[in-house]
């Protein structure tokens, strides 16, 4: 019998493709990030009972099924006009906080961190989590894996399944917890807080302690001044599970704060001929192109923008970490509530992600010691006739909105989703262009190091190209093509994951 060798060029077409066009002088004229579109979700959903959506939408993406499950469950609350019991909201937020701890940990140690721990010019083969372990020690890797596994245990315990949760119901959550389970989760949450503090300390030691990295974070190449979006609680502090959507301008002034169900009044979508994906923008400002500034409707929805849009963090250690970040990056306190001026250094998103990691861990601990958390009454009766509902959470990659319409039987007639990465499509495209313009000059040879500098521009956003995340070989290859002013391909680097 024969065995075949697989050619290493695979899954390139349409996946993570960046096209760079040069002008007559050989400098970068424009860049295009092409993200594959998954088609026909609305057609797939229409005609199905709405209550199936939390289990269907968590299949859209292998990266953050928990976020889709939660946004969908909240959309069902609105659709069936049912207010979940207080304990139910807390259980959902507890589940969601465990997910955040897992997701943010993975991003920092597997993706964002290696650029700083090993350096942006380190060989590609080392610039990954194995390289981090090699440099900082096996114990780091063990802590990352332990953190992921203990929180996956919580996700499974609360969500009913390890990967694709099933517990969300309109007005409810199918699982209450016993005192024994509560105690176990509390111990896990305490470990999470320690781990988050350790991660921030590591960031301070390895990144802030290195003047070259600080210079990199502060360099103009990775700066974009846009509006910032994020969900806030009743005190205008960061919240991932519930609240209003707040947008602040470049100087930190509140531009608008709206209920998630009103997203259509505030967000519109721009269409470009070269991509199926649309570019959301602030309706009141309008689309002015891929440009920074107060007159441009481009906004950002990331860990950094969430912190920018809020007055601060709701938990004590995260509050300290938040203040330290803004003070270190030179922000001034502004306004009657003395919040900080927004930070526009996009590489600082990695730092903001760690502040959020700490908040998620602390919030998890708060919820586990809440006396109500073991209340078994986790469902409210559904009696109203459904018509339309919007559910919204902060996914790790940005504000996630699900909007469903049904007939009187609860059968879906229309569906609209705005997923986290979509919010950031314009800013990601702008960041890639700026990095390409900085690093590619006339006669440039495209190298692995150059590719990484460009990747560093979009990595803070953690863009989700969902279908590329699980099919073999299990990674997103990157294809950079450079065209001259006549449209001829002059250089190309195809890199496997």
């Amino acid at each position: 019998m024969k065995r075949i060798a697989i050619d290493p060029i695979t899954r390139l077409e349409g996946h993570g493709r960046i096209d760079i066009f040069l002008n007559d002088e050989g400098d970068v004229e424009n860049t295009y990030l092409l993200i594959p579109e998954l088609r026909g979700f609305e057609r797939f959903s229409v005609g199905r009972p709405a209550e199936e959506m939390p289990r269907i939408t968590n299949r859209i993406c292998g990266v953050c099924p928990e976020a889709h499950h939660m946004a969908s469950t909240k959309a069902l609350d609105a659709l069936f006009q049912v207010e979940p019991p207080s304990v139910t909201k807390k259980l959902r937020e507890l589940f969601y906080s465990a997910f955040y701890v897992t997701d943010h940990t993975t991003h920092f140690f597997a993706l964002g961190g290696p650029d700083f721990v090993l350096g942006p010019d380190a060989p590609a083969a080392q610039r990954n989590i194995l390289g981090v372990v090699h440099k900082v020690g096996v114990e780091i890797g063990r802590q990352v894996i332990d953190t992921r596994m203990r929180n996956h245990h919580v996700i499974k315990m609360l969500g009913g399944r390890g990967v694709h949760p099933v517990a969300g119901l309109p007005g409810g959550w199918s699982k209450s917890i016993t005192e024994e389970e509560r105690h176990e989760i509390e111990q896990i949450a305490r470990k999470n807080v320690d781990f988050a503090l350790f991660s921030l300390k590591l960031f301070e030691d390895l990144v802030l302690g290195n003047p070259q990295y600080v210079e990199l974070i502060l360099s103009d190449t990775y700066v974009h001044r846009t509006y910032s979006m994020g969900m806030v609680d009743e005190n205008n502090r960061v919240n991932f599970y519930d609240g209003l959507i707040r947008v602040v301008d470049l100087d930190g002034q509140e531009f608008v704060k709206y209920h998630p169900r009103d997203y259509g009044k505030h967000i519109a979508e721009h269409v470009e001929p070269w991509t199926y994906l649309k570019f959301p923008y602030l309706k009141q400002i309008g689309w002015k192109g891929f440009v920074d500034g107060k007159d441009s409707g481009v906004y950002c929805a990331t860990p950094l923008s969430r912190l920018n849009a809020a007055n601060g963090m709701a938990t004590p250690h995260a509050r300290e970490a938040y203040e330290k970040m803004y003070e270190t990056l030179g922000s001034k306190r502004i306004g009657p509530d003395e919040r900080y001026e927004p930070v526009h250094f996009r590489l600082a998103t990695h730092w903001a992600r760690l502040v959020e990691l700490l908040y998620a861990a602390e919030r998890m601990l708060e919820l586990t010691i809440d006396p109500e958390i073991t209340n078994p009454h986790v469902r409210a009766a559904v009696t109203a006739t459904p018509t339309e509902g919007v559910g919204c959470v902060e996914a790790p990659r940005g504000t996630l909105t699900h909007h469903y319409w049904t007939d009187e039987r609860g059968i879906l007639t229309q569906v609209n989703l705005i997923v986290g990465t979509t919010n950031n499509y314009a800013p990601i495209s702008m960041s890639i262009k700026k990095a390409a313009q900085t690093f590619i000059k006339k006669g440039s040879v495209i190298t692995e190091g150059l590719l990484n500098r460009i990747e560093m521009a979009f990595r803070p956003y953690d863009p989700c190209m969902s279908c590329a995340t699980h099919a073999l070989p299990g990674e997103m290859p990157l294809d950079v093509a450079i065209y001259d002013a006549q449209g001829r391909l002059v250089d190309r680097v195809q890199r496997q994951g």
Partner: protein
Amino acid sequence: MKTLVLGLGNPILTDDGVGVRVAEAVRTALATRGNRSPKAENGSVGNDQSIQLAEEAGVVGLPGGVSAFELAAFRFSEVDIQEISVGGLALMEAMIGYECVILVDAFEHPDVPPGMVHRMTLDDLRRVSPTQHSASPHDASLVTALELGQRMGLPLPPRITIYAIGVENVTDFSERLTPSVAAAVPVVTAAVLAELGLDIES
């Protein structure tokens, strides 16, 4: 040998769900025979028919020269089936505690027509991803994740077999496989059962 059959993919994204369909079919087949291999139990080779079917159907990379002794190593006292849609670290974590993992997944490649099946080892996968560097926006590669797990001393399976199935459409939402990919499901199911030391109808 504690074994995991892992169907990887999105069951509502047309051909992307082919791994999940195979896992479902293997589960059904095992349920009908009580998760045991009657022929293997009394010492005979129990998977000739399955291997033959897989061979005839053109599965590339089936184990050659399989001896009864080798097949005895494939007697599985406990087989779990899972269907998930994750990669990298989460995929590695799903394998912890198993001695053998059979992974079934979609494979998009210009030279691999829809429905064509490749049986691969981890070494083959390493060659597919030679730099072992993660360019994923979210995670590490499976190869990197497994190396990390090994460095951590996690109990990971020494034996990982991968069935990669050529696909036609992984961008449209649908629960239905395209015909040529659907035709591969019984073929790969038989091949997986053969790996487990089972005939397709025993």
